[in-house]
C-alpha cells in the first residue's frame, strides 16, 4: 500500500487506486476522549488498551475509564479482553513498581533536577548522572579505550507495561526518539519543558492531524504526494551532551574522527588488482524518481501500486547489460606470460598421431618348431618310416567300454550324438571309428543326432566311412535325426520327449513323412527306448550337458562318452564313482588303437599312429630343450646380478 490517507468510506486509494481493505470496527472506549474528539463507537467493542494509552498521551486526557469488555466486531478481538486493563492516570501502577522519577515524567513534570532525593533511582542511572556531571561539554559520549574499565551494561529498561507508557516531549532533542526520561537523566542539560496546555506529542506523531472529522488519527504518507502537509523535518539533535551510553554513530553532524586515528597505514592495491578496477560502470548518483513520475505496476500481485519495482520490463524481459563491462588492463609482461601458458596448453592438446605398430615378425624359434613338427608328422605318412610300435597294453577303461557295447541289445537302435566341430575330425574320427565299427559289427541300428549345425554332415561322413566296411546303408541301418538347436534346453526336450524335439531329420528318405517313420526308429518313443546313448565330443562342455540332462530319462540304457584327450579329466569324475553317470569312456588315440587291435580292424587310428607318435616325441624333445634352456638362462641371469 502507498500509505496514503483515504476517506473512511473510500473503496479505492485516491493515489495508487488500490482496493482498500474494509475498515475494521474499532471498539469504542466510553469516556476515553479520542484524539480530536473522535466519536467513540457506539456499540460493541472497545479500544485496545495500548491504543487508549496512546490517545491519552496525545490528547492528554486524564484517566481512561475502565474499558468495557471487548466485544468487537466479530469475535476476533476477544483476545484483547484478556489483556490486563489499565485504568486512568490516577489508577496507575502501584507505587514501587514504577519509580517516581518515571512517574513524574509520565505526568508531565519537567526536570530531573526535581527528582526527589532518595527516589528509587537505579544504580546505572545514577552512574550516568554522575558521569555526565563530571564530563566536559563536547567530550564524546563514547570513547574507545581498551584500558578503560568496562562499565557494566545498564540494566534493561523496565518492561514497558502499558501502564508505563511515557509521553514523549514534543521538543525531544533526539531525532531517534529517545525518551524524555533518558534525556532527563542528564544533569546539566536536562530539558526544561514548560508545561503546556497542549498535549505533548512525540516527534513521530507530529504529522498526525486532527481535523475533527471523527476519523482515526491520520499518519502522514511516507510518499510526498503534495496533498498533505509534509512531516516536519527531523530535528537535529546535538548528541554530544547525551549520556555516555549513546554511541557516537548515533549522532549526526559529529565531526569525523577518522583523522584522529593515524595508526592505520593507507592501503595500497597491488598492480593486478588496480588493473581490475572497473571503469565506466558505476553511476555515482542514484536518482530517485518522484511518486508522480513513478509508473504504476500493471501486472502481477502488485498491480495498481505506484513506485513498486516493475516486474515485466526488468525481470521478465532480460536484456543485455548496458554500459561498459569491466576492462582489464594488461601490461606487456602479463601478456607474454598468458601467451606462453596458452602455447603450453595447445601443445598438450595437440593430438599425437599414433605410429603404426611395427609388424611383428615371427621368431625363428617358431619356424623351427613348426618345421620340426611338420616333418615329424609328415615323414612317416609319406615314407612309412619310422613305424612306431603299437601299444602292447590296453588301457584299463577299454575293457569296461567293450563290455558295455557287448552287453547291449541289438534290436533297438543306439543313439549316437555327434557334438564336435569340423576342425576336430582329425582326432574324433580316428577315436570314434573303432567304437562305431564295434557297434556295426554287432549289427546295432544307429540313429545320429547333433546339437551343432554341421554335426549331421560329420555324422554322415563318419558313418559312410565306417559303414562301408560293414555294409551299413542309410535308411536301413542308420538314420540321421538332424540338428537340434538350443543347448541344454534342447537336450532336456529331447530327453523328455524325443519325438517332439526332432521332426525333420537329415538326408531323410523321400517316402517318409517324418523321420520317426523310419524302420530304424521303430518302437522308439522315449529316450530309454534307445539301447545306448553315446556322446562323441571334442569338448567337455557338451559331454557334461548330455550327462546332466539325459540321466533321469535313460533308464537302463548305458551312457558312453567318446571324448578328446584334452577333455578326459573333466569327464572322468562322472565315470569314477560307485554310482557312475557314465558307463564307458574312450579317449585318446592310444585307446583307439588298442580298440582297433582288439577288434582286429586297423582303421584311421592305426594309419595315424606313427605320425602321431613321432610328432609327440619331437614335441617332448623340444619341450625338454626349451626347459633346459630356460633354466640355464635363469641361472646365468641370476649370476650376473
Amino acid at each position, binding site marked *: 500500500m502507498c500509505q496514503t490517507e483515504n476517506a473512511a468510506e473510500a473503496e479505492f486509494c485516491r493515489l495508487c487506486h488500490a482496493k482498500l481493505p474494509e475498515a475494521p470496527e474499532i471498539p469504542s472506549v466510553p469516556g476515553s476522549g479520542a484524539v480530536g474528539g473522535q466519536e467513540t463507537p457506539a456499540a460493541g467493542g472497545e479500544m485496545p488498551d495500548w491504543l487508549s494509552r496512546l490517545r491519552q498521551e496525545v490528547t492528554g486526557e486524564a484517566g481512561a475509564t475502565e474499558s468495557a469488555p471487548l466485544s468487537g466486531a466479530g469475535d476476533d478481538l476477544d483476545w484483547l479482553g484478556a489483556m490486563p486493563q489499565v485504568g486512568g492516570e490516577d489508577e496507575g501502577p502501584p507505587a514501587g513498581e514504577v519509580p517516581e522519577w518515571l512517574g513524574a515524567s509520565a505526568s508531565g513534570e519537567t526536570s530531573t533536577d526535581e527528582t526527589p532525593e532518595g527516589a528509587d533511582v537505579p544504580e546505572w542511572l545514577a552512574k550516568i548522572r554522575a558521569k555526565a556531571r563530571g564530563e566536559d561539554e563536547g567530550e564524546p559520549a563514547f570513547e574507545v579505550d581498551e584500558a578503560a574499565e568496562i562499565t557494566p551494561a545498564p540494566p534493561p529498561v523496565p518492561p514497558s507495561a502499558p501502564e508505563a507508557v511515557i509521553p514523549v516531549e514534543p521538543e525531544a532533542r533526539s531525532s531517534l526518539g529517545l525518551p524524555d526520561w533518558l534525556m532527563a537523566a542528564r544533569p546539566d542539560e536536562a530539558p526544561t519543558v514548560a508545561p503546556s496546555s497542549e498535549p505533548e506529542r512525540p516527534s513521530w506523531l507530529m504529522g498526525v492531524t486532527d481535523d475533527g472529522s471523527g476519523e482515526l488519527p491520520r499518519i502522514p504518507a511516507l510518499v510526498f504526494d503534495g496533498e498533505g502537509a509534509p512531516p516536519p523535518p527531523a530535528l537535529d539533535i546535538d548528541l554530544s551532551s547525551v549520556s555516555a551510553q549513546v554511541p557516537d554513530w548515533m549522532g549526526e553532524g559529529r565531526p569525523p574522527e577518522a583523522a584522529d586515528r593515524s595508526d592505520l597505514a593507507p592501503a595500497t592495491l597491488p598492480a593486478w588488482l588496480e588493473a581490475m578496477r572497473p571503469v565506466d560502470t558505476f553511476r555515482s548518483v542514484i536518482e530517485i524518481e518522484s511518486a508522480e513520475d513513478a509508473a504504476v505496476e500493471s501486472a502481477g500481485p502488485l498491480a495498481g501500486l505506484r513506485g513498486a519495482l516493475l516486474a515485466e520490463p526488468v525481470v521478465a524481459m532480460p536484456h543485455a547489460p548496458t554500459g561498459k563491462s569491466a576492462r582489464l588492463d594488461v601490461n606487456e609482461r602479463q601478456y607474454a606470460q598468458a601467451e606462453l601458458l596458452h602455447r603450453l596448453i595447445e601443445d598438450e592438446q595437440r593430438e599425437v598421431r599414433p605410429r603404426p605398430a611395427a609388424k611383428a*615378425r*615371427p621368431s625363428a624359434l617358431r*619356424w623351427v618348431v*613348426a618345421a620340426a*613338427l*611338420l616333418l615329424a*608328422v*609328415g615323414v612317416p*605318412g609319406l615314407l612309412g618310416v619310422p613305424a612306431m610300435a603299437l601299444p602292447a597294453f590296453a588301457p*584299463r*577303461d577299454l575293457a*569296461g567300454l567293450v563290455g558295455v557295447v557287448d552287453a547291449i541289445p541289438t534290436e533297438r537302435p543306439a543313439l549316437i550324438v555327434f557334438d564336435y566341430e569340423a*576342425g*576336430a*575330425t*582329425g*582326432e574324433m574320427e*580316428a577315436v570314434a571309428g573303432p567304437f562305431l565299427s564295434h557297434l556295426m559289427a554287432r549289427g546295432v541300428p544307429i540313429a545320429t543326432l547333433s546339437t551343432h*549345425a*554341421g554335426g*549331421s554332415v560329420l555324422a554322415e561322413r563318419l558313418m559312410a566311412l565306417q559303414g562301408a566296411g560293414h555294409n551299413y546303408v542309410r535308411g536301413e541301418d542308420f538314420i540321421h535325426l*538332424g*540338428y537340434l*538347436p538350443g*543347448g*541344454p*534346453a534342447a*537336450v*532336456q526336450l529331447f530327453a523328455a520327449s524325443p519325438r517332439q524335439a526332432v*521332426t*525333420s531329420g*537329415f538326408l531323410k528318405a523321400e517316402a517318409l513323412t517324418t523321420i520317426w517313420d523310419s524302420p530304424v526308429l521303430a518302437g522308439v518313443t522315449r529316450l530309454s527306448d534307445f539301447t545306448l546313448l553315446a556322446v562323441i565330443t*571334442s569338448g567337455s562342455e557338451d559331454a*557334461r*550337458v548330455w550327462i*546332466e*540332462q539325459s540321466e*533321469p530319462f535313460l533308464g537302463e540304457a548305458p551312457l558312453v562318452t567318446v571324448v*578328446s*584327450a*584334452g*577333455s578326459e*579329466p*573333466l569327464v572322468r*569324475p562322472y*565315470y*569314477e*564313482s*560307485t*554310482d557312475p*553317470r557314465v558307463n564307458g569312456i574312450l*579317449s585318446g*588315440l592310444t585307446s583307439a588303437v588298442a580298440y582297433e587291435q582288439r577288434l582286429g580292424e586297423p582303421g584311421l587310428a592305426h*594309419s*595315424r599312429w606313427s*605320425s*602321431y607318435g613321432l*610328432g*609327440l616325441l619331437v*614335441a617332448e624333445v623340444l619341450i625338454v630343450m626349451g626347459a633346459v634352456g630356460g633354466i640355464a638362462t635363469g641361472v646365468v641371469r641370476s649370476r650376473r646380478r
Partner: protein
Amino acid sequence: MPVQIDPVLLETLGTLLAAVLTVMVLSYILGDNALFRIATYLFVGVASGYAAAVAWQEVLQPRLIAPFLNLSTAQFGAGPFLTGVVVPIGLVGLLALRLVPGAGRLGGLPVALLIGVGAAAVVGGAIAGTLVPQTLAAMESFSPFAVAPQTGETGFERMVNVLLVLVGTVGTLAYFRFGVRQGEEYAPRYSWRRVRTPLGAVSIPWPVFPFLGEVFIFVAFGVMFAGALSATLLYLTERVQFLASALQTLLSGLFPIA
C-alpha cells in the same frame, strides 16, 4: 531341388580347393599374410551361411512354414496349431524386431523366455546332474575291501587313490575359496610353519588345503595340456596326410601310370 553334378569332377575340384586352402592356412607359420586372411574370411562366410541354411531347413521351415502350407480347415484354430505354430511365429517376429531401431524393446519377450528357460535347464542340470552325484561320489568308502567297478582296484591301492581324489577335490575348492583374496592376487599366499611330527620338525605350508589344491589343479592343467597337444598333433597329422594324398592324386591324374 536335385542338382546333377559329376561326382568325380566335384571330388577332384573339391580336393584341389581343399588342398589350396590348407596350404593358405599353413602359410600363417611364416607370418600373417593375405592368403591366410582370405582363407579364414572365406571359412567364416561359408560356416555362417551353412549354419543359417541348416537352421532354416531343419527347424524353422518344417515347424513354422510347412504347417501353413499343409494346413487344413480343421486344423486351423486347433490348440496344437495355435501353440505349436502361431505362437512361435509371433515370438520369432518379436525377436526379429530386435534388429529394428526403436522397436527393439518388444523383442525382450522372446529373449526373456529364452533366458528363463535356459537358466532353469542349467540350474536343474547342475543340481541334479553334478552337484548331488559328485558330492556323493566324493564320499567314497575307504574300506579296503571295496572294489573300484571301473578299474578293479582294491585294497591299499584303492584307499590311496580314494584319499588322493578326496584331498584333490577339497583342496581345489579350498584354493578357489580361500586361496585368493581380492586385491592380493600377487601377494604370497602361503607361509611356512614348523610342525612337530614323530619324524621331527617338518615345515609345512599354511594354509594346507589351498596349497594342496594348487598342486592338484596344476597337475590337472598339465594333464589337460598334454591331451590338448596330443589332439592338435592329430589334427595336424590328418591335414598333412590329406595334403600328401591330394598331391598323390593330383600327380597321378597329371601323370597317369600306364
